[in-house]
């Protein structure tokens, strides 16, 4: 997904001389093709995310479309007020890119776990929030935020994500994408955790269940129309995100559901249960510890359906 982003942003940089990529001194071995091919459209702002973000806003107001690139929480939480005041309030064309959403950097410790970023970015007016599930969504999402006027946040995984969209590329990532039709329960997810969701779907099949699976590449603005439609067609919706269950994707879905008239679907949110992880381990390991692995998702669905 990370490499897809870089390849896509390189295509865009070739088309748009006003595209500029700024890194907060990260992207070793990843951004090199970009800075070698587009040295005039690349800047290393050093280890200074607050300045990087305001600097990007200044450039954007001069006509540039600026991508800021870093990992984990550094491009967001470290520079939150700069995003709010300097980028979003000024409707600046700054595209904030995070590599390592969720537990990608699991073994590095809680500083590197991006598990509140969706909630925090989603709370900012004027910030569009995207979390693609696979390289195909990442490519469309990167092009979409480049075309979008204003501030956007793109939350990526790292690398090696399974391609889930086969055939032609989706035209838009603004709407939810259906991976599997189903009945009885619909699983809604955002970001790279979809691979666990798809495994979980196989696991519950032996219990006679056939969940629908949808990805939501865009967390804000949330595709409320699809959620309303699902709420009318399924008795249970399950959200899965590699993120705190408070305020993020599950929160966005809950907000839509809560305002619907009965009868409507019930909701179960799967994600990090409002805590920080002090457990050391790989992304896969931590997903399991915190209830987001395929077996844990499958168990939860079976439990919810009683």
């Amino acid at each position, binding site marked *: 997904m990370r490499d897809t982003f870089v390849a896509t942003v390189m295509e865009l940089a070739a088309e748009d001389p006003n595209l*500029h990529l700024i890194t907060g001194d990260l992207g070793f071995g990843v951004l090199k093709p970009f800075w070698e091919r587009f040295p*005039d459209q690349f*800047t290393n*702002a*050093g280890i*200074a995310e*607050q*300045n990087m*973000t*305001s*600097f*990007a*806003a*200044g*450039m*954007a*107001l*001069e*006509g*540039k479309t600026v991508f800021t690139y870093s990992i984990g929480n550094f491009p967001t939480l470290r520079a939150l*007020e*700069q995003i709010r*005041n*300097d980028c979003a*309030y*000024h409707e600046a064309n700054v595209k904030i890119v995070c590599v390592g959403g969720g537990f990608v950097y699991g073994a590095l410790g809680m500083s590197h776990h991006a598990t509140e970023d969706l909630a925090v970015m989603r709370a900012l007016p004027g910030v569009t929030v995207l979390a693609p599930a696979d390289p195909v969504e990442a490519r469309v999402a990167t092009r979409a935020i480049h075309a979008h006027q204003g501030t956007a946040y793109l939350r990526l995984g790292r690398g090696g994500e399974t391609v889930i969209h086969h055939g032609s590329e989706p035209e838009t990532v603004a709407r939810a994408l259906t991976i599997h039709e189903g009945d009885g329960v619909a699983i809604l997810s955002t970001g790279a955790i979809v691979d666990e969701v798809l495994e979980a779907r196989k696991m519950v099949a032996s219990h006679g269940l056939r969940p629908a699976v949808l990805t939501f590449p865009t967390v804000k603005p949330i595709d409320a129309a699809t959620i309303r439609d699902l709420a009318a067609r399924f008795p249970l919706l399950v959200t899965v995100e590699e993120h705190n269950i408070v305020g993020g994707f599950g929160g966005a879905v809950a907000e839509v559901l809560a305002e619907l008239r009965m009868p409507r679907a019930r909701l179960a949110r799967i994600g990090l249960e409002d805590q920080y992880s002090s457990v050391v381990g790989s992304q896969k390991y931590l997903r399991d510890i915190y209830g987001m692995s395929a077996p844990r998702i499958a168990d939860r669905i079976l439990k919810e359906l009683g």
Partner: protein
Amino acid sequence: MNSTDLSWRIRRHGIEMTHLSKGSHIGSILSVSDIVAVLYADVANVDPSDPEHDGRDRIILSKGHAGAAMYAALAEKGFFDIAELSTHYADGSRLSGHVSHKGVPGVEFSTGSLGHGLSVAAGMAYAAKKDGKSHRVFVILGDGECDEGSVWEAALVANHYQLDNLVAVIDHNRMQSLDFCEDTIALEPFADKWRAFGWTVLAVDGHDHDQLRTAFAHAQTSPGPTAILAETVKGKGISFMENDILWHYRFPHEGEEYDSAVAELEAQRAHDGDEGGSTR
């Protein structure tokens, strides 16, 4: 309008605006008035008839709490109606206490949280250089604001990219919200810090318009970014407000405070031999 006249009008508006709105920061407004006046009267290329023309110089008031000074300068320059200044802080006004660009012609950037402006200005200056544009970027900071770490992140970057089109004016009144800067978080040796960060530092009397003009001219030819360290007096021009921390937040109350402030300004006006009208 010359800079002396403009600075007087900024001070007069500042007293009026904070009095009417019961607003804070008159000390900072009076401190920065001469810097703002010289910039708008004699230095910056800005055009009220075409506020967004691409070749304009960019001005960011990073110490946004002194926004009344910028609003007053813009109104006097003709960017909007002087009468609107009386709506400062008022319900439905576009003139917020800390400076806002939304719907206000001539305001380049909204500030209010300290430590943002220098980074934004550096980004603007960097983009301008990339595109071979010749306009300049001016940013006015407070000295207390330099407690913010992000200021120094920006100082590093501006030097690294040798942003010779960037000028930071530091309103060095030596006071911040609760106390003197040196008794809060010591800044000295302040000029040496900027020099150590690679900046050209020009120390001037921040109330001497000739010195300010000379510094702005010098900044144009100096290599890399320039910091004009403007030695100022908080509350400058109103004797009982000068160097008194009380006037960071207090507004000139109806009666003695307001009347004395206006009387002092009127006396200065008479002394300057200019008949410019009162704003009230």
